[in-house]
């Protein structure tokens, strides 16, 4: 049953990811075509770009926006699935249900990243093949940079990817925690004052607590640790990354436990009106 629910949710979220990818592709093509038909050139940095290099630029640029958009969509989708009565009726324990929901979102992000990488690769090759100036430029910059491939860098790249996944997971969990805890608190308050602005106050209050707890946690866990993101960007050796990864794992596990408890106890699907 866990597998089948995973498949159903995964196909549902994949549809959304494909839709975002389609919109991104169409937008990139449309922009390139339109900007060449109307003004005849695409201005970037110091010099004009050919058709294919500008298409590559747009695809690259849109990929970040699309990633952000998909992330927000998946957050929204997670919370919608948590209160979806038709799905909650399925014969599966609530803990497995919640884990299914979160991991399918992570799987969708992974799927999206692969397709995105392929898309950027193809547009890069297109530009590389069909545009002389772009071709020569890439070749010269390749020779200049003493790019020598070694195992150490490869491990660092893998570790930073893991860190990214853990961070996305943490944000999902925090968002769910925010929703579940405000829902739980609301269900204890007398019905009369249950209205939107109150929900807003509780959310803001909880956000402050979250930030405070996070800051407190980071301080308590590693006195030498100051900014995981600084390490993330200009890391030199692979063991630098082990600290932030371990911290994120602790937080992820902590929030998974809290969310599972709240989800099992307090979160009920929406009533049918």
């Amino acid at each position: 049953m866990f597998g089948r629910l995973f498949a159903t949710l995964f196909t549902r979220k994949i549809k959304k990811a494909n839709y975002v990818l389609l919109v991104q592709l169409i937008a990139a093509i449309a922009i390139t075509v339109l900007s060449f038909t109307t003004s005849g050139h695409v201005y970037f940095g110091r010099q004009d770009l050919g058709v294919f290099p500008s298409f590559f630029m747009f695809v690259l640029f849109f990929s970040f926006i699309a990633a952000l958009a998909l992330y927000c969509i998946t957050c929204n989708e997670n919370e919608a699935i948590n209160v979806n009565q038709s799905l909650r009726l399925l014969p599966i324990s609530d803990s497995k249900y919640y884990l299914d929901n979160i991991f399918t979102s992570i799987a969708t992000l992974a799927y999206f990243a692969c397709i995105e990488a392929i898309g950027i690769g193809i547009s890069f090759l297109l530009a590389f093949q069909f545009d002389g100036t772009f071709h020569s430029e890439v070749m010269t910059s390749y020779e200049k940079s003493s790019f020598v491939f070694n195992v150490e860098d490869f491990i660092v790249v893998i570790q930073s990817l893991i860190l990214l996944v853990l961070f996305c997971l943490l944000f999902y969990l925090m968002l769910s925690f925010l929703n579940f805890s405000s829902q739980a608190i609301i269900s204890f308050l007398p019905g009369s004052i249950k209205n939107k602005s109150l929900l807003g106050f509780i959310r803001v209050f909880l956000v402050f607590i979250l930030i405070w707890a996070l800051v407190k946690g980071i301080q308590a866990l590693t006195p030498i640790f100051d900014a995981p993101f600084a390490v993330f960007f200009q890391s030199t050796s692979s063991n630098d990354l082990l600290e932030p990864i371990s911290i994120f794992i602790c937080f992820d596990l902590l929030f998974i436990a809290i969310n599972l408890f709240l989800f099992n106890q307090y979160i009920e699907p929406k009533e049918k009106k």
Partner: protein
Amino acid sequence: MGNLLEIKDLTYRKNQKTILNNVNLTLGPGKIVALLGENGAGKTTLMRIIDSMAKNYHGTVMVAGEDNEVERKKHISFTDNLSGFSENTKVEQISKFYEVIYQDFDVNEFEQLRGFMKIDSEIRLSEMSKGMREKLVIALTFSRKVDLYLLDEPFSGIDAMARKKIINSIILWKAKESTILVSDHFVNEISSMLDEVVIIRDHTVYEHLSADDIRAKNQSIEEYYEGLYQEEEE
């Protein structure tokens, strides 16, 4: 006073499908009329056209001799599912809204009906069950003094006792010369209060006759109504 409601060869199409096809109907004042028909026969659409909710239909619809959309709305009180209000509005705020917007809204009539339905004015929409919400809608609809009341499946969620009490006292709530057009699936429940019956079938008005004619042939309205669908079953 002439006919209250006159509909002449009305046709309505939506998404390339005809929903109503040359409908002709006239209703006199001071009557309680039932609008009966199967699911999806077009009863709700007909009511929405009368109250000018549904637009771009062909044919004419006159209410109290008025054809213009605004005038028609003045004479009609339609059961509305309160979708315009946010879920945490209080009943008290809704009645204040009706009081401000509709001149013909009678506040103490509403208070009386609210007491009759046992609805607390402090309760919010989100805290009301389907039945309680329908009782509120009926109270709001009948608190307006108009010529034509349109009730679209008003009783489906209300519990048996309350429904009986409402049906018995509905006649008292309307003015003598105003008419009620009620569409409902529970024919035997409402048959006691009916003056006329209109049956919608195959996208048009299939039958329109007075309840006494049916009772004259000592048939209950329910048997008559089911009889219509009997031949089609075999």
